[in-house]
């Protein structure tokens, strides 16, 4: 991924700001501690007492006070890249917690429900919910009694006295135990 915008305007703006600060004397740290290098000073003869520090300090000052970002120095060779990418900590570990579901025979993880059995139950629950919807007719019509699901050939017993009965037109599945 390569950004098209060139860095020159940014650098130019930065340099302009630095130079402006220098001109206005707002960068005293550059000259090693003197408070106002351009302020009034003793008028002396000869070139001996000209502060030499200005010319020396100017060139490196712009480079020292800029914050440099970390960047790679050398291209990483493919050998080094391979060592990193193929290190055992990056390879996928083999899972040792896979078993066979005793109900359906599909594979399942030990701490997770069997996907096939769960899908089976989910489908049956969906059909029961459709029956409930047909009986209720609309939202917010849930009665305040328990619900019992009865399959083909089953009669409501003593225990199902005050409960709402949902009929399903199929044989009772083996995993749905009655009471």
């Amino acid at each position, binding site marked *: *991924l*390569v950004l*098209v915008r060139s860095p020159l305007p940014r650098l130019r703006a930065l340099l302009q700001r630095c130079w402006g600060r220098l001109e206005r004397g707002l960068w005293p740290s550059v000259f090693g501690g003197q408070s106002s290098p351009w302020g009034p000073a003793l008028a002396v003869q000869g070139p001996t007492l000209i502060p030499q520090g200005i010319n020396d300090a100017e060139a490196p000052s712009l480079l020292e006070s800029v914050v440099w970002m970390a960047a790679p120095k050398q291209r990483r060779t493919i050998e080094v890249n391979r060592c990193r990418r193929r290190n055992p900590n*990056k*390879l*996928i570990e083999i899972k040792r917690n896979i078993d066979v579901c005793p109900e359906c025979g599909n*594979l399942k993880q030990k701490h997770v429900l069997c996907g096939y059995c769960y899908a089976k139950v989910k489908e049956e629950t969906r059909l029961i919910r459709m029956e409930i919807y047909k009986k209720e007719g609309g939202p917010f019509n849930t009665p305040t009694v328990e619900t019992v699901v009865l399959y083909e050939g089953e009669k409501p017993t003593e225990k199902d006295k005050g409960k709402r009965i949902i009929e399903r037109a199929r044989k009772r599945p083996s995993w749905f135990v009655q009471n």
Partner: protein
Amino acid sequence: SGAAWARGLLSWARPERWLASGSLFPLSCIHTSTSLQQIGRIGKWEKKNRIVYPPQLPGEPRRPAEIYHCRREIKYSKDKMWYLAKLIKGMSIDQALAQLEFSDKKGAKVIKEVLLEAQEMAVRKHNVEFKSNLHIAESQTGRGRYVKRVRCHGKGMFGMMKISRCHYFVKLVEGPPPPPEPPKTGFDQAKEYVQQLRNRTLVHTL
């Protein structure tokens, strides 16, 4: 790279290429250009299934059946697919299918389909008796055709991104998987070193 791209697109339009393909009638010949060639091309891996060995002599040990299968232009990165290919290298097919079923990666689903297809091919066409008696001898990934697209950033900036695709190749061999190599001990390395020292001779002498 932009020039090469443009050249690839316009290569079908060059008339001298049509006559160079060898047929007499330029209108009926097949374009030998890059873009059209790659659509219906049969790769080397697919052709490996076509080799026919001469019948084996009665005393020879039975040659195990080899089934080559691949899938081309899967929308996934070849480096990410490589980790899955490395996982199932050398496993039996049942173990490989189990590992792939519970892997969370996108390529796991694709590889699982490829393995099931290969297993079915083995049973139907390659005279394999038991579908569980297969192991994965080789599993490799290859780079598919990359496509460059524009990716929009903020402030009107854009970058070029590449949409990567990969191929996946698998070779199933009949029989139980080979036992894993024991890790090299220090004693073995020392023995090898001593053997190397013993193999030294004098050269260019009498």
